[in-house]
């Protein structure tokens, strides 16, 4: 088990990189998922169809395939996803700005894939709000946007938060795929590096990276349990 102590800095580096992917992907997926959710509940049929198609495609396709499309499809189309080199953000998350585009490709795949699930979690919250609330808002003359903002979303948040948390936990675990699509140095690539190139025994390394993922997911799960209990009491 010496590898955990000897190579602590490698594990810590992998943890930090995975955390960066997860933070950025979570933000991106929440924003994109919210937009798709608004499309799916919009009163305009073509927008609804667009939202529904998005969810159908990305919810039903394996993440591995989405990653393939991002890592090999985008370069084939001549894009290095340079639009993600967002000033300021790339000084905080340095991998966004590097010449190797694989961090950005993995991020795109993770955001596109997770957004479909975020959309559905948000929508289940919206559906939990009694239909009469939106009807009353419409009857007052509130527009679709005002209705969402002032009446429906403030009430749907409560019902969305727990499924949303589960989606983010799944996303953290899914981020492990990034290491197999060219992202050097995240937690899963760390395992590959230590066992393959440096010859460390597999089981201690696997325990090490597991601890890394659990440090991110277990507190999030505990937080969700607490929120759920508080909601049960309030009800």
């Amino acid at each position, binding site marked *: 088990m010496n590898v955990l102590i000897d190579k602590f800095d490698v594990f810590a580096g992998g943890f930090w990189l995975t955390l960066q992917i997860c933070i950025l992907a979570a933000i991106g997926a929440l924003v994109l998922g919210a937009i798709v959710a608004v499309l799916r509940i919009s009163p305009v049929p073509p927008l609804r169809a667009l939202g529904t198609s998005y969810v159908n495609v990305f919810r039903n396709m394996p993440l591995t395939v989405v990653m393939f499309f991002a890592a090999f499809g985008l370069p084939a189309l001549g894009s290095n996803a340079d639009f993600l080199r967002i000033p300021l953000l790339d000084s905080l998350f340095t991998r966004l700005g590097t010449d190797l585009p694989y961090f950005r490709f993995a991020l795109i795949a993770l955001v596109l894939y997770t957004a479909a699930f975020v959309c559905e979690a948000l929508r289940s919250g919206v559906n939990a709000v009694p239909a009469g609330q939106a009807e*009353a808002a419409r009857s007052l003359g509130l527009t679709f946007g005002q209705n969402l903002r*002032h009446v429906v979303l403030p009430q749907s948040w409560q019902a969305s938060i727990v499924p949303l948390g589960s989606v983010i936990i799944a996303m953290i675990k899914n981020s492990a795929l990034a290491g197999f699509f060219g992202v050097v140095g995240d937690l899963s690539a760390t395992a590959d590096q230590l066992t393959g190139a440096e010859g460390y025994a597999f089981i201690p390394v696997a325990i090490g990276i597991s601890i890394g993922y659990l440090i991110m997911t277990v507190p999030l799960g505990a937080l969700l349990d607490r929120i759920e209990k508080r909601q049960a009491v309030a009800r």
Partner: protein
Amino acid sequence: MDDVTTGEPLIVLDAVNKWFGPLHVLDDVSLSVGRGEVVVVIGPSGSGKSTLCRTINRLEPINSGTITFDGQPLPAEGKPLAKLRSEVGMVFQSFNLFAHKTILENVTLGPIKVRKEKPAAARERGLALLDRVGIANQADKFPAQLSGGQQQRAAIARALAMQPKAMLFDEPTSALDPEMVGEVLDVMTSLASDGMTMVVVTHEMGFARHAANRVIFMADGQLVEDAPPAEFFANPRSERARDFLSKILTH
């Protein structure tokens, strides 16, 4: 009223048809409601009276026919429809007060967001309306803390806050405990005597008798009778109306 078109009806339904799948809920319904008129719609359950009420502000779209409000056909979508709805107050069977907002916030949301009134002015008018319906002392509570009768009166105040040209009531007392029906009907009666144009779907025959200008009787999606209340209750012309009245008035 400073309206130059006085004398023209405010709400006109012409040959309106609506289906829910195979069910013909509104069968060639034509109806006009004059300004200041109080029309009570009665009929057995499933007769289409709630649907009729909900088509007037397009909560239910129709399959054929036309509905005009204040001389304009109902807009299909978007901002024009929102504007129309802001001019037609709606009161629901299940109140539908915004559960996450206080009673006063319920009443002021429309004026502030739709009419762009100053919050202070909207609050002042909101409090006056709550006072009018007798629940000014509940202004800062949440809907769930109020009795059904109080909630429904708050819902009426919320609709009135938009200064609507007409008010629609979709079975406003059907979800209330019996002892609370009276307080809601009192508010509605006072509205009627103030000259508000009202379409009221209800089972309260007492209200129909003393507050309505006309009683509409519906059955199977059709408008079967349209008569002043005294005439309707004393002398219903159709077999179905006689049958309906005999069932509800003998108890």
